C-alpha cells in the first residue's frame, strides 16, 4: 500500500520510539499537522516560539538521554530554530529537527517563506538533509536518528518540501549503512595501559569530568576510577552531576568561576585525566599557562576535541564508559599500588586549599543574596530535582552552590551560553518527568527571552518552577562592566523596565510569588514546590552581588579574584515596586 510522505514521517517517528514532538505549525507542514490531529501515540507540544520548541526538545533530551524531536514550518519557522540548534550542537545534544520547505519546484526562487535552512544550519548541525524524494524519506529519518544519537551526539535537521510530504510511495523500513560514518567506541588498549602507568606514577593527579561522562552514562565508572585511585575530581559545567558534588573527592567546578581548590589542584598537578570534556577556554583560562606541570591524558569520543586547545600526552579516542571500564580493569589487575599512601600528601594539600578558601558568600539579614536562594533550593529539594539555568550570574551561582549528585539533573547551556534556554528546557524536562520537581534558576534578563513559554507550561499542565534571581540588571555583563569598564553600566540596567513577574504569572494563569527579604525565601520556595501549577518566584536580590571567585578573561586560572572584604556597611537596597 502506498502512503504519503507525511504518513511515513509519523510511522518512522513511532518506530524510533518517539512519543513527543515540540513544534509550531505553518503552511508547508500542514500535511503532517493534519495527521497529528487524530494521532493518539504521538503528542505534539505546541510552544509559543520555535526557539522554545528546540530548547524544550533539548531539555527533554538532556533529561532523558533520548533524542528530542522538533517540527516547524519553513522560512521564519525554520530560522527561529537556529539558536536552539546551535545550543544543542555545542553541548552535544541529540535532536532531530524537521523543518517544512517550499515545494521542490519553487526551491531557489525566493518563494514565499523560503529560507535555505540546510545552508543556514550546516555549521551548527551534526548533519542535515534536504529530502527531495518521498522514496528517500524513511531512510533519511532512520539515518538522522542514528547520526543524532551515536558517536558524539548532536542535532540533525531534515528539510521537507511540501510536495514530498504530500506525495505517496510504498513504505519501507530500510537497513542503513553509512559507510563514511564510523565513530570509534573502543579505546586503544596500548594507550589505555600508558594512561594507567602514568596514573600509577603520578603523585598529584586530578580528574576533570565533563559532559561526555554524562552522555556516555559513565558516572559509575568515573566514581570507580576516583575511589580506587584516590584521585580528586573536578566537574566542568557540563559535567556537574557526572560525579557526586557531595563526595569527599569532589573539587566542584574548575575554571573562570570555579573553586579555588579545583583551580589550584589543576595548576599544581602532575597529571590531568580529562574525561569527556573539551578544554573550553572558560575551563583553561590562559591556555599557555594551564596546568604547567601536568602530563595530560585525554579521553573523548570526538578526535577533534583532542589536541584542539591543549597539548595531550596520552590521547584516547573512544566512548568514555568503555574506555574507563578497561582503564579501571587495568588499574586493578595490572598496576599494584597502595593508592591511599601515594595520594595522602596530595589530598592533605587539597584539604588545606579547601579550608583556605571555601566556596562562600556573605550572608545578609536585610537583602536577599542570590547565593542564599540557590542554597535554600538545594536544602529544600535535598538535591532531588532537575535544575535548569539561564545564562549569566544565575547559572554560575547554581553551579557553585547547588550540589549535583546525579547525572542529568542540571540542564544548562554551556557551550553557546544561550539566555532563554532554561525555561523551555525545564518545560521539556517536566514533560519527560511529570512527577519530578523541575526548577529553572533564572535571571530577570534571561527569563524575558522566552517568557512566552509560560503559556505552554500552563496549558500542558507542566508545573515547572522558575526562581528568578531578580537583580534588575543583566547581572553578569554588569559585573564585567564594574570590574573591567570602570562601572560604566552601558545598557545593562533594566531597573524599572523589569516587568512585574508576579502579575505576568497571574496573567498567564500561573502562580506568582515574591520574596523581598531573606526571611521570605524559604516560605516562598516551599509554597512554590507544593503548588501543582507553574510558578514564577520573584526573588528581589542584592543587585551588587558578584560571582566569585573569578579568573579575569585571559588570565591563568590560579590568578583568581575574590570577594573584597566589606569596607562600609551595605547601602540599603532600593526595592522596585
Amino acid at each position, binding site marked *: 500500500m502506498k502512503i504519503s510522505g507525511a504518513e511515513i514521517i509519523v510511522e518512522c517517528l513511532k518506530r524510533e520510539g518517539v512519543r513527543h514532538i515540540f513544534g509550531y505549525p505553518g503552511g508547508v507542514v500542514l500535511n503532517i499537522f493534519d495527521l497529528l490531529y487524530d494521532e493518539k501515540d504521538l503528542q505534539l507540544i505546541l510552544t509559543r516560539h520555535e526557539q522554545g520548541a528546540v530548547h524544550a526538545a533539548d531539555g527533554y533530551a538532556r533529561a532523558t538521554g533520548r533524542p528530542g524531536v522538533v517540527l516547524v514550518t519553513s522560512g521564519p519557522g525554520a530560522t527561529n530554530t537556529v539558536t536552539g540548534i546551535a545550543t544543542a550542537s555545542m553541548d552535544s545534544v541529540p535532536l532531530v529537527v524537521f523543518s517544512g520547505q517550499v515545494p521542490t519546484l519553487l526551491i531557489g526562487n525566493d518563494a514565499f517563506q523560503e529560507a535555505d535552512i540546510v545552508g543556514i544550519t*550546516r*555549521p551548527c548541525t551534526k548533519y542535515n538533509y534536504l529530502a527531495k524524494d518521498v522514496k528517500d524519506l524513511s531512510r533519511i529519518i532512520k539515518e538522522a536518528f542514528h547520526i543524532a544519537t551515536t558517536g558524539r551526539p548532536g542535532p540533525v535537521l531534515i528539510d521537507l518540501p511540501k510536495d514530498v510530504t504530500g506525495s505517496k510511495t510504498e513504505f519501507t523500513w530500510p537497513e542503513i549503512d553509512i559507510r*563514511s560514518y564510523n565513530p570509534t567506541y573502543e579505546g586503544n588498549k596500548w594507550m589505555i595501559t600508558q594512561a594507567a602507568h602514568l596514573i600509577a606514577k603520578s603523585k598529584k593527579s586530578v580528574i576533570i569530568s565533563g559532559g561526555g561522562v554524562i552522555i556516555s552514562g559513565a558516572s559509575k565508572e568515573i566514581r570507580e576510577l576516583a575511589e580506587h585511585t584516590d584521585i580528586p575530581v573536578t566537574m566542568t559545567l557540563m559535567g556537574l552531576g557526572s560525579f557526586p558534588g557531595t563526595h569527599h573527592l569532589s573539587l566542584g567546578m574548575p575554571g573562570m568561576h570555579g573553586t579555588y581548590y579545583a583551580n589550584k589542584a589543576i595548576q599544581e598537578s602532575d597529571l590531568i585525566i580529562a574525561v569527556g570534556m573539551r578544554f573550553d577556554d572558560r575551563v583553561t583560562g590562559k591556555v599557555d599557562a594551564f596546568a604547567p606541570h601536568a602530563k595530560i591524558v585525554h579521553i573523548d569520543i*570526538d*578526535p*577533534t576535541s583532542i*589536541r584542539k586547545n591543549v597539548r595531550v600526552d596520552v590521547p584516547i579516542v573512544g566512548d568514555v564508559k568503555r574506555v574507563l571500564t578497561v582503564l579501571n580493569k587495568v588499574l586493578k589487575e595490572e598496576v599494584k599500588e597502595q593508592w591511599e599512601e601515594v595520594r595522602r600528601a596530595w589530598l592533605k594539600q587539597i584539604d588545606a586549599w579547601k579550608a583556605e578558601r571555601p566556596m562562600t558568600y556573605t550572608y545578609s539579614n536585610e537583602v536577599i543574596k542570590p547565593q542564599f536562594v540557590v542554597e535554600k533550593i538545594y536544602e529544600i529539594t535535598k538535591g532531588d530535582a532537575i535544575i535548569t539555568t539561564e545564562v549569566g550570574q544565575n547559572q554560575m551561582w547554581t553551579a557553585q552552590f547547588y550540589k549535583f549528585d546525579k547525572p542529568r539533573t542540571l540542564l544548562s547551556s554551556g557551550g553557546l551560553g544561550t539566555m532563554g534556554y532554561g525555561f523551555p528546557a525545564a518545560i521539556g524536562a517536566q514533560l519527560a518527568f511529570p512527577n519530578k520537581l523541575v526548577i529553572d534558576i533564572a535571571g530577570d534578563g534571561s527569563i524575558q527571552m522566552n517568557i512566552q513559554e509560560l503559556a505552554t507550561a500552563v496549558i500542558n499542565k507542566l508545573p515547572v518552577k522558575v526562581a528568578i534571581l531578580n537583580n534588575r540588571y543583566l547581572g553578569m555583563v554588569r559585573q564585567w562592566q564594574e570590574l573591567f569598564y570602570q562601572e560604566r553600566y552601558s545598557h545593562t540596567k533594566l531597573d524599572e523596565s523589569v516587568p512585574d513577574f508576579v502579575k505576568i504569572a497571574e496573567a498567564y494563569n500561573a502562580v506568582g510569588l515574591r520574596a523581598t527579604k531573606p526571611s521570605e525565601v524559604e516560605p516562598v520556595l516551599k509554597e512554590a514546590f507544593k503548588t501543582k501549577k507553574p510558578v514564577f518566584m520573584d526573588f528581589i536580590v542584592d543587585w551588587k552581588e558578584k560571582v566569585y571567585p573569578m579568573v579575569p578573561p585571559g588570565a591563568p586560572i590560579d590568578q583568581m579574584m575574590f570577594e573584597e572584604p566589606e569596607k562600609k556597611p551595605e547601602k540599603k537596597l532600593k526595592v522596585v515596586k
Partner: protein
Amino acid sequence: MRHTISVLVENKFGVLSRVSGLFSGRGYNIESLSVGETIDPQISLMTIVTGGDDWVIEQITKQLNKLIDVIKITDMTELDHVEREMVLIKVTPRQQDKAEVLNLTEIFRGRIVDSSQRTYTIEITGDEKKIEAFVELMKPMGIKEFVRTGKVAIAREGVKKKQ
C-alpha cells in the same frame, strides 16, 4: 608548511560547501581545491592544498574526517606522491618575442592550444616549480589571461627491484 590533502567524499550535493564551510568557519586557508568524480560516480575526490603548522594540519585532517560525507583522507605530503597542475596562459607577445614564446613552450613541453594574430594560448602541465618558472618567463611577454586548475595528486607505488 604546505600540505596536499586528498579527500574522498560522497558525491552528493552540498558536500563541497560542507568542506569549504569547515575551512572558512574555522579560519583555515584553502590555497587550491579541485574536485572531480572518481571511477565510481557516487564518490568524488577533492584535492585540497592548505597550509599550517602540525597542530593546524592535525585539526584540519580530524575535522574533515568528522564530516559525515567524508569517506577517507590522505595527507599526500606524508607520502611519496606525484602532483600536477595545469594552467592555460594567454600571452600577447610583441612581434620580436613570438619565436621566444614558441621556443619556451617547446622547452617546457607545453602546447599552443589556440592562437590569433595577437595572442597565443599555451597549455602547460607540471608541478608547482615548473609552472612558476614558466610563468616567470612569460611575464615579460605580456600575460593577458591566466587560469589554473588547482593541484591534483596521486601516491606513487613502490617498484620492486628485480633479483
